[in-house]
């Protein structure tokens, strides 16, 4: 293959794989939005905390898999905490105070991480073999593949749970109409809390798979939140697996524009695309149109 095309393909593939991480974080948005129409503006911080939790557990001697599970458990607890502290009140008051409150909680989390773990970036110890796999001239590393596999895995698991377990169906009922669900005996509040906990699990897991590729540090949070948001909005906040497509597209677009235009311009096309998508189709490419009811 022509070297130039190969280079472009390399950039696109690497970006696309990374984009699946964005999709996973965006999936967390989807879960909480479905339940209570609220999203965590500090989701990136949750990802970061999950990664640090994983690093600390691994540092304490736990094998990789246990550290990932431990991180996920931490993610669930943190997700619950964010809901309890930042979201519940706003939902009760039926306003959008959760936007600010989740930003605030995220800020506190960032500050805590800076002081507990330090401001430097750290490598995430993962047992993947070093070196790259060659697919027709394109190099892919094991951690990158782990991102893709992990993201798809978690999303599939949760979607299956949503459809085939009683709890999952109950949560779906609450998403559709919280008042009606209450009338049927489903505690909406528990369903919402559960969604936030699962969203926390998704975020923490994302941290443990992103960490080996990008290293872990306080600065990873902000960039991630925006990118995951872009994916969520472009795909649509209720689009299910549409997120994966949007994530791959955004990741690939980022890398390609960085390569072609220069590394500083990486994020630009994604952002322009986002603004356009928001103006032309606010419900997202795959989302359902919102019907205004008065």
């Amino acid at each position: 293959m022509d070297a130039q095309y190969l280079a472009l393909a390399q950039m696109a593939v690497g970006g696309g794989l990374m984009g699946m991480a964005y999709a996973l974080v965006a999936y967390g948005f989807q879960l909480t939005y479905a339940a209570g129409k609220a999203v965590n503006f500090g989701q990136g911080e949750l990802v970061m905390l999950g990664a640090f939790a994983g690093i600390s557990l691994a540092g304490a001697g736990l094998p990789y898999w246990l550290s990932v599970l431990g991180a996920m458990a931490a993610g669930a607890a943190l997700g619950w905490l964010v809901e309890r502290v930042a979201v519940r009140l706003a939902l009760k008051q039926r306003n959008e105070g959760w936007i600010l409150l989740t930003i605030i909680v995220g800020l506190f989390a960032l500050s805590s991480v800076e002081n507990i773990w330090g401001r430097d970036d750290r490598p995430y110890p993962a047992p993947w073999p070093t070196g790259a796999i060659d697919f027709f001239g394109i190099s892919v590393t094991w951690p990158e593949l782990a991102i893709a596999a992990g993201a798809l895995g978690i999303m599939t698991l949760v979607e299956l749970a949503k459809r085939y377990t009683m709890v999952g169906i109950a949560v779906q009922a609450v998403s559709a109409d919280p008042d009606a669900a209450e009338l049927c005996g489903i505690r909406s509040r528990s369903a919402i809390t559960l969604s936030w906990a699962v969203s926390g699990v998704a975020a923490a897991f994302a941290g443990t798979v992103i960490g080996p590729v990008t290293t872990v540090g306080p600065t990873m949070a902000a960039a991630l939140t925006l990118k995951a948001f872009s994916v969520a909005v472009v795909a649509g906040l209720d689009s299910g697996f549409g997120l994966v497509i949007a994530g791959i597209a955004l990741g690939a677009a980022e890398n390609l524009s960085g390569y072609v235009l220069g590394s500083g311009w990486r994020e630009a096309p994604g952002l322009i695309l986002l603004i356009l998508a928001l103006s032309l189709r606010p419900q997202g490419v795959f989302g359902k149109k919102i019907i205004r009811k008065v």
Partner: protein
Amino acid sequence: MIAGLDLGLREKSAERILRIALFIVLGALPALWHGQYALGLLTLMAVYAVLLIGLDATVGYLGQVNLAQAALFGLGAYGTALAVQAGAPFYLALPAGILAALLPGASLALPALRLEGPQFALSTLSFATLSVIVLNESESITHGALGLSIVRPTLFTVVLDARGFYWLCLVLLFIAWWASGILLKSRFGLSVEALRDSPTATDALGIGTLRHKVLAFAWGSALAGLAGALHALNFGYLQPAAFGYDLMVMLLLGVVFGGRRSQWGAFAGAAVVAMLPNLLSNRILFSSLVGCGCALTLVPAIRALITRRVPSFRESAPLGAMVIALALAFFASNVEEWRKGIFALFLFAAVVGLPDGLAGAVAAAMHRFIRFTPDPLPQAAEGVMKSHTITSALPLRALKLSKSFGGVKAVDNVTLEIGQGETLGLIGPNGSGKTTFINLVSGLYAPDGGSVEIAGTRPVPGKLMAAFSAGAARTFQNLQPFSGLTALESIIVCQRDGGKPEAMGWLRAVGLEANARERCSDMSYGDLRFLEIARALSTRPRLLMLDEPAAGMSKPDIARLVDLVASIKRMGLPVLLIEHHQDVVAELCDRVAVMDGGRLIALGTSEQIRRDPKVIEAYLGADDEEAEVRDQKEAHAC
């Protein structure tokens, strides 16, 4: 409690006096507080105050989370810096900065227009990130990450030293403060607040979300540009990274902590943001501050405990945040390193426990201890309900209107006309499509088929403003009040002509004259229903549409309603009335249309439709046999 201290002052005058006093103190401070560093802080505070007053326009008044302000600040700064580099004098460099922020800001409002809540926040965030990227990458112009240095030009041959520049900033801050106050408390400001509370109602009543969103955003951007210009001239060195998300969060939190919808709040927030690093580096000072915070947040929790109640989240969470801050004050090895976390804790306490911020809390306290002379209410004008001018065209001509949602045909091929001065009732069981019909006519939805003609004009389908311009005005089945406004303000913001006396007149017409100064969020359900009618009337429509105005009303209120609609009839104004209360319909309506399952099944006088078997069936159901026979007959007839 202490009886209010009566100063014989109106609140407005008191505020004005305080403001002037504040600026005098600020101006005099450099004489008392020596040192370049102190002056630098004060100047920074003044610049941030301008910036936050601008941010408040969107965050406080529009009620949207605007994440672009820091970037606009940066654009303004670079605009001025580049102008200075190009040799522009002081008096041109400032406007250059304003324009550099105003133009992108206003153009951002256009795509952000249709968005609400998190999507709006996200589009502003994208814009902000893009701006920083552009500033970083345009190295040939901005020197990118290396930064841009400029030398402050002279102001009309006067070399401004640090103190002089500070006073200039104070002057500009004063102007920005004063102008914002005027703008945001005028009808424009009320419209912006109305827009925040109910965008649907603002469009339906012709106030126009587009115009106001763009203007509010533009005003905020212009102030960001001014602040940026001052910042560039003050600091002399700019770097793109300084205007990123970190700063934006600080600004946002400053405006919230200080108090939204208040220039005082913006100033308080600016002071906190500017002074924060210093407040933290002195541990004793900081600990005492947190101690006060703990004490203050303890009050609501104790109050709850005294009444033997478990303190709610709102009462206990701020205390929890303050306790964590106190722990940090004592145990953290370096308090300054926890800067962001501490700010977050204070903010959390403010957002949860003090939703109106510092300024709001102070204002509330002031109201408790001082009694201000209320603003005089004007006398209600007479004769607002004057005769409605009759046009030649029919008030309403709906022709073969259809609308489906997914598989459901909400409105199916409905043709309906309203004659001059006619009151037409529209009834039918729940889910028959009545509200959807009104939504089609008023422009909330675009029909899938058919057309709407209002007073001879065919408005662009699906546009609330277009239907309004053609002459439609409506009330809503689910109330859409402007909760942040008072009853009087709600009318002022809607009315087509006249001033306060006319607005009072409209209130009197619906019996709400006594509630003029009452905030909508405090008004009773029944009163709000009447207010909605007054709002619609004040726009002097050619067609008035009332969607279940009597729903949930008490018996006496229903009687009042009937009288009101009767007087509207006497005006000659055509009315489309959706109602379930059959007696109301019978008394008021000249004709009645009946819908069922999206279709118009009957049209006639009250008497006629009461006896119509199809209507009876629709409401009460029918014998299966009878229904089958009739359906077969219908199928054969064509």
